């Protein structure tokens, strides 16, 4: 299974191009899943079909899915609340209800919901599809989502280190005071007995997997931009971000070139190439044909994708 993420500023034509790419790859006979994380929900509009949270068969070998981030977020909050109530009903630690309902708005929920959905898709659909094409939300959120595994891993590592220290001290205490431990107090002091560290390891493995996949050779992040200064700036931001996160990118689509002066187009492309010399740029004309064609774009945009991946 290989993945391609279409990224770029809002309105550059990400959704259209990702839809087109999905269509073209499917035409070649591969099994393709097109997923949209964009809250604007353009995917369904482009394919002129109603899409939901669950994948829908468009035709043989091409499936479509719109991830509802808000729904995912509230589901997650509900599940956490129930888990808490189950375990902590007898402890008057937190005032569960009022507390957790505010979680919906806490920073990170959107990212987490997206990451979880991404994880699920990667895990579930790996065997069902040869290519998964992703349409991403606007730049900021996308970078946060991509950064999340790494950030989480950093925290998990710290928590694991702290937990190991706790277990080491417990072992010392057990060794010295073990036979006089107060009744009913069973402190785990071996890693094999400690549910917390086992859970931490499990979480670390999960996020490592996602991180490795995203940084690996089966993944590609593709940039879509327009030949104007705003789009250029945002694209640079995006590419720097991807560089920092060590996510592989090599292709950029210069979309909606029609009508722009050739000089402007070339300048924008050169600016980009200055900082990112390895970027291969393909120009996409923007014509009445494209507008109506939608995903049935005539230009071949997938050869470099299929080759490069």
């Amino acid at each position, binding site marked *: 299974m290989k993945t391609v993420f279409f990224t770029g500023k809002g309105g550059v034509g990400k959704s259209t191009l990702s839809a087109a790419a999905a269509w073209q790859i499917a035409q070649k006979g591969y099994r393709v899943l097109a997923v949209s994380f964009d809250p604007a929900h353009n995917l369904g509009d482009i394919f002129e079909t109603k899409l939901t949270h669950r994948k829908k068969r468009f035709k043989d070998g091409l499936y479509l899915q719109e991830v509802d981030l808000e729904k995912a977020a509230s589901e997650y909050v509900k599940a*956490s609340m129930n*888990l808490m109530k189950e375990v902590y009903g007898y402890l008057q630690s937190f005032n569960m209800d009022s507390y957790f309902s505010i979680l919906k708005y806490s920073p*990170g929920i959107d990212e987490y919901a997206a990451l979880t959905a991404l994880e699920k898709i990667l895990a579930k659909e790996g065997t069902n599809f040869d290519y998964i094409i992703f349409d991403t939300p606007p730049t900021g959120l996308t970078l946060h989502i991509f950064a999340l595994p790494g950030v989480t891993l950093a925290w998990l590592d710290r928590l694991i280190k702290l937990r190991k220290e706790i277990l080491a001290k417990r072992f*010392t205490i057990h060794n010295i*005071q073990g036979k006089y431990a107060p009744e009913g107090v069973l402190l785990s002091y071996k890693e094999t007995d400690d549910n917390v560290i086992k859970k931490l390891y499990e979480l670390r493995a999960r996020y490592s997997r996602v991180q490795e996949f995203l940084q690996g050779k089966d993944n590609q992040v593709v940039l879509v931009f327009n030949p104007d200064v705003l789009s250029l700036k945002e694209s640079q931001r995006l590419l720097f971000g991807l560089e920092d996160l060590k996510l592989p990118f090599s292709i950029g689509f210069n979309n909606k070139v029609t009508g722009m002066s050739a000089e402007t187009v070339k300048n924008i492309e050169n600016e980009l190439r200055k900082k990112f010399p390895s970027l291969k740029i393909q120009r996409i004309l923007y014509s009445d044909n494209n507008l109506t064609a939608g995903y049935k774009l005539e230009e071949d945009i997938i050869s470099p994708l299929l080759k490069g991946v």
Partner: protein
Amino acid sequence: MLTKLWTYLKDFISGMDYVHREKAAGITQWEEKELENIFILLLTGSFSGIPAPPAFVAAELLPLLSREIKIFNQRAENSFDTLAEMTGLLDID
């Protein structure tokens, strides 16, 4: 009479044994409790406004940490009253 003395002696020695073990690991015990306190603090920091791991990590782990949460709450209550506790622990005189 002799057996009573013998049991008393045994109790005394086991009591001494306990005191010694307490002495040898008393501070470690205190440290361990504090580490657990810190663990929870780090984990749930986002609930109280300090920078913390993503909240979902906390949500996954908290169900397994009931003892630590108890300690955390107990510590939070007594956190302003630690001077006396430390004087005993640190064996100043």
